[in-house]
């Protein structure tokens, strides 16, 4: 569905090392990706993985060492042709983690600044500022000094300032991470609605996997300056290729296994808990690691006759957290973490049948 849209942002083989470090380790080490028009694309990763540096290179706030960056087909940075278009002439707008709302201006002063920089006629600018404030729900606050706003309101001002320009690409650098949990949840929903409505191509940087999964069309998971895996949220969560992905996004039971038979799309593997039928991707090595997410395992009452992918187990601990119960179940001396909805409550010591759905047993590339 996304594939026939034209590319809006292309990043090719980007490299960047900060010179100040005593032992220079590249912050961005050969990152390439393409964001299509209207797409919501997320760079996800732990702190220090180079996601913000990549974003700042796109914005022109950092100068890469090598690589190419194209915005709507136009080179804004290229080492080969020695192109480096300054930030203010790139067709982008950005929301900073710290909001960066100018404290000496009013709300409308902040929002109209990008239009003044573009020499927009006064009457038109006024209308666009009010429209942008309307979108973020701050129309009544136009004449307030920016310092009299709460954190969430400042965040909205920063958003209004970013969308008023109608730039081709919206760059968002962890815009929700400074908000408290409740407000973050609310802003996340609003951000999702906003993107649906405006359809602006968005490059989003976050370390929060929930945000990335909820908001994005595609997610690039980064570590140590490189993209580890790039796919849709659903594919990254349900069928990750790498152990790092499985562990960073969600939780997983991960253990060694050996492949016995390989069929079209499915594999039979031997492991510590017994024989498991699992999903097999295109590339599956001889020995591998098996991953099952805790919430995909179901527990049933103990019975004698077992079908494939069913195992005898005993609950060794259970923790109640309202919506779910977190169990540790021992199967053949191996501990499995299981998460079940609280509709049925079991207790430690119970004997159970552990069911692993084959389509949710994923073979990882080791």
């Amino acid at each position, binding site marked *: 569905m996304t594939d026939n849209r034209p590319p809006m942002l292309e990043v090719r083989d980007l490299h960047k090392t900060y010179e100040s470090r005593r032992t220079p380790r590249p912050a961005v080490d050969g990152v390439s990706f393409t964001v299509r028009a209207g797409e919501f694309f997320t760079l996800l990763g732990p702190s220090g993985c180079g996601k913000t540096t990549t974003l700042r290179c796109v914005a022109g706030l950092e100068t890469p060492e090598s690589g190419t960056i194209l915005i709507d087909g136009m080179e804004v940075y290229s080492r080969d042709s020695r192109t480096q278009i300054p*930030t203010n002439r790139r067709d982008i707008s950005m929301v900073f983690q710290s909001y960066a709302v100018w404290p000496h201006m009013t709300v409308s002063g902040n929002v109209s600044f990008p239009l003044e*920089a573009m020499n927009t006629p006064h009457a038109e600018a006024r209308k666009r500022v009010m429209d942008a404030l309307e979108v973020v729900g701050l129309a009544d606050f136009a004449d307030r000094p920016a310092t009299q706003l709460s954190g969430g309101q400042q965040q909205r001002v920063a958003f209004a300032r970013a969308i008023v320009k109608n730039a081709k690409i919206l760059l968002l650098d962890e815009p929700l991470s400074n908000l408290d949990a409740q407000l973050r949840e609310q802003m996340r929903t609003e951000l999702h609605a906003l993107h649906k409505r405006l359809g602006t191509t968005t490059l989003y940087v976050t370390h929060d996997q929930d945000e990335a999964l909820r908001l994005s069309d595609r997610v690039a998971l980064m570590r140590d300056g490189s993209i580890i895996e790039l796919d849709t949220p659903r594919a990254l969560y349900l069928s990750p290729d790498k152990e790092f992905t499985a562990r960073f996004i969600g939780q997983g039971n991960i253990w060694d296994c050996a492949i016995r038979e390989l069929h079209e799309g499915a594999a039979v593997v031997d492991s510590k808990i017994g024989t498991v039928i699992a999903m097999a991707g295109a590339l599956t090595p001889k020995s591998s690691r098996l991953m099952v997410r805790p919430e995909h395992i179901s527990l049933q009452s103990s019975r004698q006759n077992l079908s494939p992918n069913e195992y005898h187990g005993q609950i060794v601990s259970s923790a109640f957290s309202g919506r779910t119960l977190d169990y540790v179940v021992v199967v053949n001396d191996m501990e499995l973490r299981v998460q079940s909805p609280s509709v049925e409550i079991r207790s430690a010591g119970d004997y159970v049948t552990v069911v692993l759905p084959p389509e949710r047993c994923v073979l990882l590339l080791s």
Partner: protein
Amino acid sequence: MPSPWPPSVCRSSKLASGFVQNTLPAIVLVLLIKEVPLGVQMLKTSILQIAPELEEAGGTSGARFSMIFRRITLPLIAPMFGSVFILSFVAAFRDISATILLVGPNTKTMAVMMIELAEEGRFEATAVVGVVLSFVVLALTLAMNWLRGRVEIRG
């Protein structure tokens, strides 16, 4: 009494003193030299305290360097400018050590005037000048505190 200095030094210093003694520019120059280093340090600190994102946000909004400086950087350090001005002014206003050797009959600072009046034994007049001087300094210090308060509110 013969001068302890060689004649060339005497001649050039006399020449120099001819330029500077008894003139207003001399006092201004000396007070500038005395007060500028502290002021520059204070301004430097306040510029460093501006979060870099505030200026970067200007760039991503499409503004050129000149516009960012005029519309964002300058207004943000303006209260500190005022504060530095007042602090330097107060220090210069009551300065004696640097100015006392440079004042002439037509260029007398209030602080030096107090000393001269006291030497003449006109203590009432000395007190009057002192009171005026104190009030001016007090008013300026209050103004500075008000400006500082604004800087802090702006964070």
